């Protein structure tokens, strides 16, 4: 009995000690991909990124121009699907000319920079990002009139321990596949997927067989054209998940070749093409 009561006492001391410890996770914003209040969702990392990218201009937070969607509740940190939705279509009068995707807490927060044209039709994108820690994920859109708009979500990943990186099919690195998941829509924004088979290694992970660091090796850029006209260019970083994938739109006015030109951090180049016939 004395044993038990003394161990209870120890347990209570332990709890007391914990409650005196500093709180590690500040409740910065809504969790799990819920909307975060515009004025309370900053982070030191974001301040730094914003200062270097926008040189004094402050992107306007709100959901009327650009929206970021992430899954509700817990996500799998190695591959968090994110979707950017633009309110307006791409028109010569006003269009999205650049987009940035940022993961505040990642070692390299800037995950992607997209350089867009009118050929996109509708500036919606989906991709998958690594989110190592609980972090804000953000999109910033720059319109052709120079306005900057931003939206963010607080992503709460679960697990803590990452899964061992997948190391199969290394011989297929660079294989680039294009698909039209919803078929062809002539003269309208047509969704397309580009996926590059690539480990997209960050350089921060240890191989769980050799216990050696896996050197960084990731896709740096994907350039998409249709019928030899530029649709968009994407500069990417290792915050993009293994087997980088982008869902985008393009506007086909007739038959043509959808083409993806890919380069990686070892200066390897890869090309994927899809012949699109007018018949749909």
């Amino acid at each position: 009995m004395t044993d038990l009561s003394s161990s209870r006492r120890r347990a209570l001391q332990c709890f007391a000690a914990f409650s005196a410890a500093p709180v590690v996770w500040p409740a910065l914003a809504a969790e799990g991909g819920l909307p975060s209040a515009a004025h309370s969702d900053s982070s030191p990392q974001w301040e730094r990124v914003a200062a270097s990218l926008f040189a004094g201009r402050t992107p306007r937070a709100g959901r009327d121009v650009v929206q970021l969607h992430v899954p509700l509740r817990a996500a799998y940190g190695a591959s968090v699907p994110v979707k950017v939705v633009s309110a307006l279509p791409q028109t010569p009068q006003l269009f999205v000319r650049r987009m940035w995707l940022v993961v505040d807490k990642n070692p390299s927060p800037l995950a992607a920079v997209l350089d867009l044209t009118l050929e996109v039709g509708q500036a919606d994108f989906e991709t998958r990002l690594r989110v190592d820690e609980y972090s804000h994920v953000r999109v910033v859109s720059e319109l052709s009139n120079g306005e900057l708009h931003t939206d963010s979500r607080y992503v709460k990943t679960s697990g803590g321990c990452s899964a061992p990186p997948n190391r199969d099919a290394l011989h297929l690195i660079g294989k680039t596949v294009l698909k039209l998941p919803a078929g062809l829509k002539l003269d309208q924004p047509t969704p397309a997927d580009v996926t590059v088979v690539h480990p997209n290694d960050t350089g921060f992970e240890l191989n769980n067989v050799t216990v050696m660091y896996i050197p960084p090796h990731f896709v740096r850029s994907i350039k998409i054209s249709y019928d030899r006209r530029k649709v968009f260019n994407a500069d990417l970083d290792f915050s993009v998940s293994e087997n980088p994938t982008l869902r985008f739109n393009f506007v086909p006015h007739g038959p043509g070749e959808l083409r993806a030109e890919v380069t990686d951090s070892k200066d390897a180049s890869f090309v994927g093409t899809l012949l699109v016939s007018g018949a749909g």
Partner: protein
Amino acid sequence: MMAGATGAHAAAGCADDGSPPLRRRAALASLATAAACMVGALGGCATFDAWPPQVQSVAPGVYLLPGATGAAEPDNLGRIGNVGFIVGPNGVIVIDTGTSYAHAQAVLAAIARVTDRPVKLALVTHVRPEFVFGGSAFRARGIAIRMHTRSARLMAARCELCLKVLRQTLGDAAMHDTEMYKPDQEFDEPSHVLELIGRPVRVLHFGHSSGPGDIAVLDEQSGVLFAGGLLDIGRVPDIQDSELAAWQHALAALRALHARVVVPGHGAVIDADSGIMAVETYLRRLEEKVRSLVNSGASLISVGEAAELPEFARWDQYDIIHRRNASIAFLRFERELMFKPENMK
């Protein structure tokens, strides 16, 4: 509450190796426990009111310190994994080390209340924080830690980060003196018997199944099987480190052992058949559900909602682990499709 009920036949100071009638009684009691917990698991059988939980007797000389339900959080000190121990004439083998230095100290103190025989060895069944990080306290006492080579490598590759995250979650006080370590003993062989404590303890490895180096531990004398990462009961099994097909094969191999009862990695003691079937069913349903989503062209962003399996919704951590499992399975099956020959032209 339920832990209190199972604690009714708890065995602080109970005999190490009982006579046959006593053994039978203990076995019956543990089956009753199992039955109670099969119902209770749905309502949170393993919850306990205060740490430490009482030592549960699973069979003569075989004991369990049950982990709390839920995710690792300050309220439960992260002590969510089961810790078992087997007492033989010459000493004690501990199965899994707990979450932290302090947890392992509490485990060693609890063992000392049951027996004065020396703790000879701690086996780590799989590489999850709540099974691994108590190791530093064992090593400080000169007790060797033994794990599969693949587990040792996985631990070396990622546990620095796991420990950092756990420290952030639980706080420095709960995690004091808890450190990364290398196991003292590694092994590669699939299955072997340890004779260290004068009572044969069989270590079973089925290849990369629920995890790369996951093992089960069978006390041959009592027929109690410690299933480690291969079985979670009343809690959604985590597929993150697994090879799904090999896991199913390993479960079939476990069934063929005809163990009397199973102590899972998480959750309550259960009879072997029911426990194995529950996990087999979950893994099969998960795979069916997610394959159909991949084949229908669903988007990863919708998978959490689309992969609901209501029949498992009452299992602990359904909201977290099942959703993550669904995402992980989705990515794997999608990759399989991507690498199919007809898609690689």
